[in-house]
């Protein structure tokens, strides 16, 4: 679902779009470069999108100038993300840290925050995140886009679109939180370390052919996932008590693996729709529990693991699926190897190579406080998802709820929604 926007044209309900550039305050030394790891390169066709909506009381007095100034403070810490991609003679992409900047988009919306949030399918928040892929000219493609949408009531929508090659979703949230602190005027005590070790500990160094990654034909310098099918997105809220717990036998200690249950239920629904062939392999993406806290640098360190079952999914119980998901195998080592092979000239799809489930439920998204107030609503999705589809689970405003963003081929979406209704995930 790539919505590319032309300068000045509205994207749906957003109008009066103005583009400008923001960057880092201090000049980077000439000749500085940033080398992506194999894992980074494997993610290059994907883009992470997050949209945060703040109420008028919080955001009414925030000027564009102030927002830009605080962006400069953020990019002072991660100046390398304001660079541009280039290729070595061997074809391997690297970032030229030339302080070129990121694109800052301003837009207006004729609805109030309340009217905007009244729409049940939260995927309308995609309009709050300006996105353009990297390419066809690498040298003039920003890696990050920031959108500031002013609602009629004075509320603010902050959208961040970030190329996954820079860092994973956890890094994105970390950077966004840093920005909100800068907006609020809190002195930055802990700058984002940029020279941290970008490796990861993997218990499975022997996995050679990761199934969670699919090699595709070369895309050249336009980093867009080639899909034959048009993808659609649907986003909805789930109540843990009412819609998730009933699917799982009650545990003595009252703790249930919410993400795994949601993944299991959705896996089953998709399997019922997608009968031939059934998706017996899925990819699970989670935060690395061994990762040094806080997230030590902006990088790709998320655990990408694969689950394979040998029983028919559509008939299986949720418990069985949850158990299988628990036995997922970490494939990062293999992905790192294959991503960096052939001098980084190969192109891969990770999200959607197999039906992918991303667990962001541990992230405190509503901790991104501006002027002391949490956002009203947070939306997250990935751009450039492969045809097998993607499910992202993350925290909702209320702690007993979760938000689920599902991206599937358009032709499957309606039938999957029907399955959701059947198992009580969404209201009929």
């Amino acid at each position, binding site marked *: 679902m790539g919505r590319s926007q032309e300068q000045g044209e509205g994207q749906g309900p957003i109008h009066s779009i103005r583009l*400008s*550039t923001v960057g880092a305050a201090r000049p980077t030394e000439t000749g500085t470069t940033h080398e992506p790891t194999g894992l980074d390169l494997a993610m290059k066709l994907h883009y992470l999108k997050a949209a945060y909506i703040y109420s008028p009381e919080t955001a009414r007095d925030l000027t564009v100038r102030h927002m830009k100034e605080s962006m400069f403070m953020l990019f002072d810490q991660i100046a390398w993300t304001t660079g541009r991609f280039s290729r070595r003679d061997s074809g391997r992409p690297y970032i030229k840290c030339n302080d070129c900047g990121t694109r800052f988009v301003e837009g207006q919306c004729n609805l109030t925050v309340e009217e905007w949030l009244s729409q049940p399918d939260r995927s309308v928040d995609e309009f709050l995140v300006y996105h353009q892929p990297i390419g066809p000219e690498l*040298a003039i493609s920003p890696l990050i886009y920031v959108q500031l949408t002013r609602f009629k009531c004075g509320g603010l929508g902050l959208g961040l679109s970030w190329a996954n090659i820079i860092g994973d979703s956890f890094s994105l949230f970390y950077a966004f939180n840093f920005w909100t602190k800068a907006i609020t005027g809190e002195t930055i005590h802990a700058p984002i370390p940029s020279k941290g070790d970008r490796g990861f500990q993997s218990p499975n160094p022997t996995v050679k052919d990761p199934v969670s990654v699919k090699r595709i034909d070369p895309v050249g310098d336009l980093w867009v996932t080639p899909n034959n099918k048009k993808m659609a997105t649907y986003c909805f809220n789930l109540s843990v008590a009412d819609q998730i717990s009933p699917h799982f036998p009650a545990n003595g200690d009252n703790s249930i693996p919410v993400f795994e249950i949601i993944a299991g239920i959705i896996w089953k629904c998709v399997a019922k729709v997608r009968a031939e062939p059934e998706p017996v392999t899925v990819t699970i993406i989670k935060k690395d529990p061994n990762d040094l806290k806080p997230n030590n640098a902006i990088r790709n360190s998320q655990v990408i693991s694969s689950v394979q079952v040998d029983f028919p999914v559509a008939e299986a119980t949720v418990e069985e699926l949850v158990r299988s998901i628990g036995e997922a195998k970490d494939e990062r080592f293999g992905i790192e190897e294959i991503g960096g092979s052939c001098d980084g000239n190969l192109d891969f799809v990770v999200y959607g190579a197999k039906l992918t489930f991303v667990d962001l439920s541990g992230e405190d998204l509503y901790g991104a406080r501006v002027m002391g107030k949490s956002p009203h609503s947070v939306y997250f999705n990935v751009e450039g998802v492969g045809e097998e589809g993607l499910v992202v689970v993350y925290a909702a405003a209320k702690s007993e709820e979760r938000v689920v963003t599902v991206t599937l081929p358009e032709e499957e979406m309606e039938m999957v929604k029907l399955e959701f209704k059947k198992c009580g995930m969404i209201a009929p």
Partner: protein
Amino acid sequence: MSDISSSVKLKYVKLGYQYLVNHFLTLLLIPFIATVAIELLRMGSQEIFTVLYSLHFEVLHILCSSFLIIFVSTVYFMSKPRTVYLVDYSCYKPPVTCRVPFSSFMEHSRLILKDNPKSVEFQMRILERSGLGEETCLPPAIHYLPPAPTMEAARNEAQMVIFTAMEDLFKKTGLKPKDIDILIVNCSLFSPTPSLSAMIINKYKLRSNIKSYNLSGMGCSAGLISVDVARDLLQVHPNSNAVIISTEIITPNYYKGNERAMLLPNCLFRMGGAAVLLSNRRSDRWRAKYKLCHLVRTHQGADDKAYYCVMEEEDKEGNVGINLSKDLMTIAGEALKANITTIGPLVLPASEQLLFLSSLIGRKIFNPKWKPYIPDFKQAFEHFCIHAGGRAVIDELQKSLQLSGEHVEASRMTLHRFGNTSSSSLWYELSYIEAQGRMKRNDRVWQIAFGSGFKCNSAVWKCIRTIKTPTDGPWSDCIERYPVFIPEVVKL
């Protein structure tokens, strides 16, 4: 060996010649005074008194002589022009959010001029050789794609630059807005109604009988023209001060077309501004930094080529921009020569003037092929502030005036850090010299500015108190990094 010894000998001959000619009168007076002193000592006090009595001085004679002396001294002091003191000045430092790195500028250029790759290529080559650094700034409106140069944005830039510089000046000098007697603003390309001077009067609630002037259209040399106006006004108004604001507002003048000669200013002109406080009050003499010695203005506008060489006009598509002709350097050289001819006799020591005169006479009478003698201005000045119009201007002047790298360092470093800030660049350069701790009491500074028309204006200041470092100013956070080596071509 003989070469070295002969050049050393020549150096001593030159030095001897300079001492002889420059201190001629002193050298003449010494034997005279010596003779008189010896004679007096020889005569003894008795004889001196006898001689004096014999002159028959009467009371009337003495009174008349004293009155004559007093009358002559009064006339002399009254007709002496009032000294104009530069109390202090402040240069605007743009916020880091306005920074324009090379890569950013080129990316914007490629996105806006996507149908004219040749123009983009041209801009890149200009930027590579421009001598600018990565920290120059453009106003917020120009950071948009495409740039959004509305009148409101231009006014905002003017307010940002001028008010910040003025507030800094108030803080530095303790000046109260109500005490300003004369206000002169010069901004060449943005001239709204009400004027920028009216904008300042409104903001700071200045007095209703203030003498305010707004100079527009006078190019990059307008800063010194403002100083000239202030000087003349301060001759007429005793016990007054004058505030001069020199700036160039970039927002409305960003060229939106693709004509190459008109894209050049986009690459070089950057945000900047300065506020200067001048005074003719004796009480300010103790805290002033400089006093104005000379100000020479030369205008080449009578010559058609000079008049047309910097021309604001519309291109084929109707976009307004500034067209710089290819003869710019030649014309600048000629304007400089005209200016030097006038200022030379005022500042050069007698030895240089004599040499110049003899070389001139020699060329006219004996042999026109003799090389013209270029007076050594390094003997007249310790510091030079050459308008940072571009690398070519600084190179040309360094060659013409035979200046060393250190003399033009202030100009080159200002071009690198701030770009071409038009009329205010001279003040950034002066600030650089102060920040480096090179400005000592009795040092003389020569400020040279060029501007459309074609004009060459120069001012000579004398430092009246040593400026101690560290100075607060636009260089305070980066002076340790300077001077930097600026490569001939920066690879983008």
